[in-house]
Each structure stands twice: as C-alpha cells, then as structure tokens.
C-alpha cells in the first residue's frame, strides 16, 4: 500500500528566486526504508520537513502530498501529529522536559490520551528501547547517544506509521550512531515501520535501505535500490562530494568503473575483490615517513583527574608532535581525548608531569602569551567561539583583543577568510552559516591569532562528506604554512586519509604512534572499512584510494586468465 505519494511538488522559500524543490514526484510503499542523500543545500531537509505538517517551512508550495490517500493538509491536527514522527538532528535541543519518564510521556500527554494508556505505552517504549536503567534520571545527565535514543523513543510512543529523521546520527560518536541505526533497522524489520532517513554517513545505512534517493539542486537524480546507486552515479567526476560519502565498498566499485553487481558491505566488498582482482602485487610502495627534527609540543608523563575522589582520566600519557605534522589522536568516546587536549591547551593542569609547547613548559607562559602566535584550540562545537552579530564584527573584535593596529585589520581578516573561502559570508550571522561554514569560520578566527600549533577537537563532527574534503584541503594548506596540527577524532576514515601520524588513546595513555599505513594495518577492528575489505588480500591498503590503486596495478583476474 502506498503510504506517501508526492506529485509535482515545487517549493520556493519566501524572498528567494530559485525554487528549493523542483517538480518532485515519487511514492513510498508502507514498510519501506528509504535513505535520502545529497550535498548540503540540495533540499533534502526541506523535503523532509514538508512531509511533516507541523514543521513545514513557510513559502510557496505547489503540487500534492498524500498521506495514505488523503492530502496531508486535510488530516486533523491530532492525526497529523500522531501518524508522522520526526526526529531532528541535534539530540540536545529536542528534549523538552527534565526527566526521562516525562519526556517519554510528553507526546502522549499532548495527544490527550488517558493516564492508563500513557502508563502502558511509556512502559512499552522504555522496555523496547532499553531505557529502564535510566528511566528516572534527569535528561541532562544522559550521554549524546542516550539522548537521541530517548528522542526516538518519545516519538515512537505515539505509534506513528511513518518516521522521518533528519541526520539523526551526525552529532553522535560512531558506536552510538551504529546503535541508533541498528534500532532503526529493528523498527523497520520487526514493526514494519516506514522510515525516511536523511543521512550523510552512509556506510551503515546503505546496506539496510530498500531504496536510496539521491538529490541534487532540488531534484531527484536517482531513486533506486542501493546496489544500483554505484552504477547510477558513474557519470559523476571522481572528486564529486557526493561520492566521498558513499560506503567504501561502493566507492571502490565505482572508482573501478565496474558494470556488474555492486557490493554494499565489507563482506561483499571482500568477495568482490577476491573474485575479480589478483594480489600479485600485494602492497603499495609507501616512502618511509620523515618528520621534522623540531618538536612542536611534548607531553611528558602527564596525569590528570577532575576531582580528588574521582579516578584518573589521563594516566602518564606521553606524546611528541613534530613541527608541521598532522597528528591524529583516535579513541572511543569518554576515554579522555578531549581532556588531554584541554591539558595541552592549558585549560586544565596535570597534577603530575609536564607539557612543553615549542620547547618551553606551558606553565612558564605568563598571561596570554601561550595563546599569542603560539597555540590555539578549536573546540568541538564551533558555535561556542562566536560572540558577535556578524562574522566580520566577530573577527574585528578578535583583532582588537589581539591588539593588532587598526590599519591592518581589514587585510588580516581578508587573508584568513580568503584562505578558507568564506569571504562572501562576512556579513552573515555566525549561527546562520551551515555546519561546514561554521567550521571554516571558526578556523579563520583561530588563524587570526597566527598560531604555530592548532589543536582541534572532533573537527569532522556533524559535517558532510563534501565539507570534510574541504576541511582536509584546508588542513593541507595550513600544514604548508608550517602550522602543526593536533587533531582529536573518532573519525577513522578521516585520520587514515589525511594524518601524517596517528595514535590511539586508551585507558589514559597514548599507544602506538605510527603513520596511518602502519597504524591501521596493525589493527583488526579499529580500522577503516577499506582496510577491512582488503585485509589478507593486500598488505597495506588503508584508504579506498589505496585499494583502487592496487586493483588497477594488478588488473582484472579474468583478463589475466585469458592471457
């Protein structure tokens, strides 16, 4: 049965010339799992919001949206609210009440259900989503993953027949994200729930989707089962941002220009490699990594805990980062990576051990001198950096605080904003920028202080594949300028692609600082998908590019057999 039917849908925001959505027509069957992807600004969020009446943006709309045969506008308020559930991007902002149990019952109270029914549904939801343990807790005390799970549960409590999700995992760490996706899969398979998911992290969702919708500039360019997507996008140039977001198996398949069935998972990817490519040449020649002799920063046996009665978070961690390196610290959530970064940035002090910034003890830097032409910390949430009404005012304020002569301000601001490609955004409010642009603006602000060392906390969090590639280019540019970059991340793929050296932070210590090709081939689980696909076939392929290069060098198997 068709649950959603969209016909000739056009939508234009007020005051904008070009329509955001252009002549969309499609339908969704009951019980389908649909993934919607596309570069930022392609209209995918607008489309999703139009399907949820309460969240529909203002603007001119033509065409029709039918829910189970009835135009969406003709449903009564309660039915509309009940039948279509919506989960937003930021776990924090969606929670309305202070207690977990109250959040679960909130939607049901709104729908005016009798107390007995609410009690039963709340119990059901808490059991299904594994919330019993924290049922009576304050919502403020939950982790990000728990918060998003609570949001999902409190939407599901109303028993909607369609669930819409707008990048629900973008603010979560990989483990919480995988957990969340697994729950969506369970809802879809076990309850037959229809799901429309907007997502840019596709590695996990691709294999479980029934159909994938690719959008570009307000139109649907492709709407087909996931294994047809690779071939459907064959016409795109290799550096197209859309391709960077696809699962590794699909990217490898796509880059090799194959015509047969597209693998979606790591397992299928391994099969595909084994069947089609030989491993005569089983490793890439990677020149040994040489770093500068000068140490930019050093952590020597640092110990730290937040309070006397709490356990140590950092236990004798040692680290040397050389000048001009891109160094990535990887590790799970809550292991203390951010704490380590705060120690290096001088925001907290180790109770034992020392930190040296460019050869000088960090405690010997008086006043602001640690942060002047020296070291800067880019926090996880770039929004926390902006104080003023426009980006220009914000940057000017920093120039004033840094005591640059007024005549230089304009030139300095222009230089950093041009380097980061955001000079056209100077008069925007920082909060109005997209996730990727906010990231760039934040880096621009850091660069005004002319740091020699830039510390970054999860810079890839919440930004799509295109913005990630752009970020990587910026990092390369900064490296060329001689800036040392220390990045804390759990984005394994990003570190593999762009780091000079990686280290694993575990149990308060730093383990195995190696170049990515060594670091990741030494790991079995904590490694890239491309490495898992090629493990045992090729020796040191870590990125999709590596695998593709080796495949090309080896050539296709059949051709070899014939010859």
């Amino acid at each position: 049965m068709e649950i959603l039917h969209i016909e000739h849908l056009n939508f234009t925001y007020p005051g904008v010339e070009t329509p955001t959505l252009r002549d969309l027509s499609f339908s969704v069957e009951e019980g389908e799992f649909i993934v919607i992807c596309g570069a930022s600004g392609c209209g995918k969020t607008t489309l999703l919001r139009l399907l949820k009446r309460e969240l529909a943006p203002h603007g001119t709309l033509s065409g029709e949206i039918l829910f189970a045969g009835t135009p969406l506008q003709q449903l009564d308020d309660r039915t509309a609210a009940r039948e279509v559930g919506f989960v937003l991007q930021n776990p924090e902002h969606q929670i309305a009440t202070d207690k977990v149990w109250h959040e679960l019952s909130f939607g049901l109270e709104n729908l005016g259900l009798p107390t007995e029914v609410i009690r039963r549904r709340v119990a059901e939801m808490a059991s299904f989503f594994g919330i019993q343990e924290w049922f009576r807790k304050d919502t403020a005390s939950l982790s990000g993953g728990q918060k998003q799970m609570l949001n999902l549960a409190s939407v599901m409590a109303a028993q909607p027949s369609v669930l819409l999700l707008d990048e629900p995992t973008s603010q979560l760490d990989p483990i919480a994200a995988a957990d969340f996706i697994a729950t969506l899969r369970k809802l879809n398979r076990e309850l037959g729930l229809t799901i429309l998911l907007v997502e840019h992290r596709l590695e996990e969702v691709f294999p479980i989707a029934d159909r994938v919708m690719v959008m570009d500039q307000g139109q649907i360019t492709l709407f087909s089962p996931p294994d047809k997507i690779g071939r459907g996008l064959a016409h795109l140039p290799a550096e197209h941002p859309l391709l960077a977001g696809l699962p590794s198996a699909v990217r490898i398949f796509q880059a090799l220009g194959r015509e047969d069935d597209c693998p979606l998972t790591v397992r299928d990817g391994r099969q595909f490699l084994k069947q089609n490519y030989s491993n005569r040449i089983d490793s890439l020649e990677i020149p040994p990594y040489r770093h500068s002799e000068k140490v930019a920063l050093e952590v020597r046996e640092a110990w730290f805990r937040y309070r006397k009665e709490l356990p140590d978070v950092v236990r004798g961690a040692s680290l040397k980062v050389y000048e001009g390196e891109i160094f990535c610290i990887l590790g799970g959530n809550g292991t203390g990576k951010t704490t380590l970064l705060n120690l290096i940035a001088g925001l907290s002090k180790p109770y034992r051990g020392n930190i040296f910034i460019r050869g000088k003890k960090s405690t010997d830097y008086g006043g602001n001198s640690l942060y002047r032409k020296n070291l800067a910390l880019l926090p996880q949430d770039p929004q926390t950096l902006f104080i003023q009404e426009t980006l220009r005012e914000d940057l000017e304020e920093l120039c004033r605080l840094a005591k640059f002569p007024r005549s230089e301000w304009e030139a300095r601001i222009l230089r950093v904003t041009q380097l980061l490609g955001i000079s056209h955004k100077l008069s925007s409010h920082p909060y109005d920028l997209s996730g990727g642009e906010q990231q760039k603006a934040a880096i621009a602000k850091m660069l005004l202080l002319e740091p020699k060392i830039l510390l970054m906390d999860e810079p890839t969090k919440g930004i799509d594949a295109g913005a990630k590639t752009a970020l990587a280019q910026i990092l390369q540019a900064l490296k060329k300028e001689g800036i040392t970059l220390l990045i804390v991340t759990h984005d394994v793929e990003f570190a593999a692609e762009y780091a000079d050296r990686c280290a694993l932070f575990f149990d308060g210590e730093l383990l195995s600082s190696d170049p990515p090709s060594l670091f990741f081939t030494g790991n079995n689980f904590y490694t890239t998908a491309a490495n898992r696909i090629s493990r045992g076939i090729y020796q040191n392929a870590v990125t999709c590019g590596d695998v593709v290069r080796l495949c090309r060098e080896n050539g296709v198997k059949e051709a070899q057999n014939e010859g």
Partner: protein
Amino acid sequence: MEDQELTLPAPSAGFAFASFHPAALLCYFLGVLLIAMFSLNPGIALISALGGLLFSASLQRPGVFWGSIGYLLPLSLLIAAVNPLFNYNGATPLFHLNGKPYTLESLLYGVLIAVTLIAVFCWFRCYSLILTEDKFLFLFGRILPQISLILTAALRFIPLFQKQYQKVRAAQKGMGIYSAKRFSDRFRAEIRVFSSILVWSLEHAIQTADSMKARGYGSGKRGHFGIFHFTLRDGLLIGMTVLLVAISLVAMGVGALDISFFPAIQPAPPSFLSVISYFCYSFLCFTPFVYEIKEKLKWKFFISSI
C-alpha cells in the same frame, strides 16, 4: 565535553520516606511546619527541632549534616543573645548594658526563637531533599498544567545553559581571551559570553519548539501522566498527619500550650490536653526518622540473611 559528564542519582532516590506519594508528603511537611512555626511553645519547639535534626541527619552524609550545624548553631546562639539588646521587657534583669536592662525573660524568648529557627531550617532541608521539584510539579501539574510545563522546561534548560556557559568560556579561554588579569577585562569577557549565550538560547528554544510541535503540542487538551501512585499507606500518612495536627491545633486554640514571657515567664498550667498534644506532636515529628532507620535496618537484615 562528554568526558566530564558525571551521572548523579536523583537526590530523593534511596530515602525510605521519599517513597510516599507527593501529596502525602506535602501534607505531612505542611502539618509539621504549621505547628512548629505558630505554637511559640518551648516544648513544641524542642520536639520539632529534635525531630528535624534527627531526620535531616538520617538523610545527609555526616560531613554535610555537621557542616550545616556548624553555621546554624552559632547563628541561633547569636539570635538568642542579641534579642535582649532590642527587647528590654522582663522582670529579671541580669545586668545593664548602656543603661538598658538585659533580662532573663528576653534571653529565654530569644532562645525559643532560635530553637524554632533551627527546627524550621531542618524541616525545610528535609523537605527539599524528599519533595524534589519533579514531585512538586507533579502535584501542581493537574491544577496548573501550563505553568507546570513551563517550570519543567525551565528545569530542563537551566543545566543546559550552565553547560553551554562553561563551554563558551573554555572556548574563549582557548583563544587567550580569558586569561587577562585585569578585573575590568574579565568582567567585560563575562558579559560577552553571556550575551552570546542568549542568542544560543533563542536558537535552542526554536528547535525545542519544533520538537514539541512535532509531538502534537498544542493539538488540543492535554492528558496527564506521572510515575507516582497513591496507595493505602499514603492515605494512612495523611490521616495520621491530619489527626495529630488537629489535636495540637485544638490545644493551641484553647490556650493549653500558651506561655507568656513578659513581664515574667508564666506557662499555662499543665493539663490533659497539653500532655496529649506534646505526645501527638512528638509522634508526628519522630515518625520519618524512625521510618528511615527502620527501613535501613530492614535492608541490613535482608542483606545479612541472603
């Protein structure tokens, strides 16, 4: 930032007395406080102070409890000692200060006020530990649904605001904007942070409103749900409170508990009613302490018998 998150249990978790229904608890605390504040009788004041002290000692860690005694006791001694300096009534001058008498009656009256203060302070402390905000909101949610929802949202928002404030401060400090030594610079920096968080709050509010609308907020009359259920023992607690408070009120009404301090101390003659009401009020005030200890012992017994 998640590294720093600590999960603390809800304050009222683990207290035996907190397992009563919020309505019964509210009734109980109102009853105890009503008598304690308005009787102005040394016996009643002593009973309620003792009951309050014991109860709050059973709810708090020893360090916290003695810490609060540490400033409560000197404060009440001060009040008792200072009272005669402003109140010269009384027939028995102990000595003269600046030509004014410092009387025994006035001193004792000050002691009574001090003891009452200790009692009220302790009971309010227990009240805040036992009858947490969520229970209070539950009680008034039915009567004032809109206001209670706003309060709930505020309770949700306050910790979030504090967290964001710390994050922004840390971010600014990481650029070296906060390390300035001068007070005026620091003050200006605080103002900057505060104003930026106001914008952030607005952003937060818009998204929260979206999520509330998406879940049908404003689609008609709201239902009501709470995790508290009224049972027989809650009824018993209310019945007991009402009965005991009523007896004490009657005693107060007919003057059996009256005591006049000025010019000379003159208590009402002991009567059957006054003895009964002392007894009833003691029963009322010591119930939660005894209940708390009883449950603790019960658990000890359970654990040792496993």
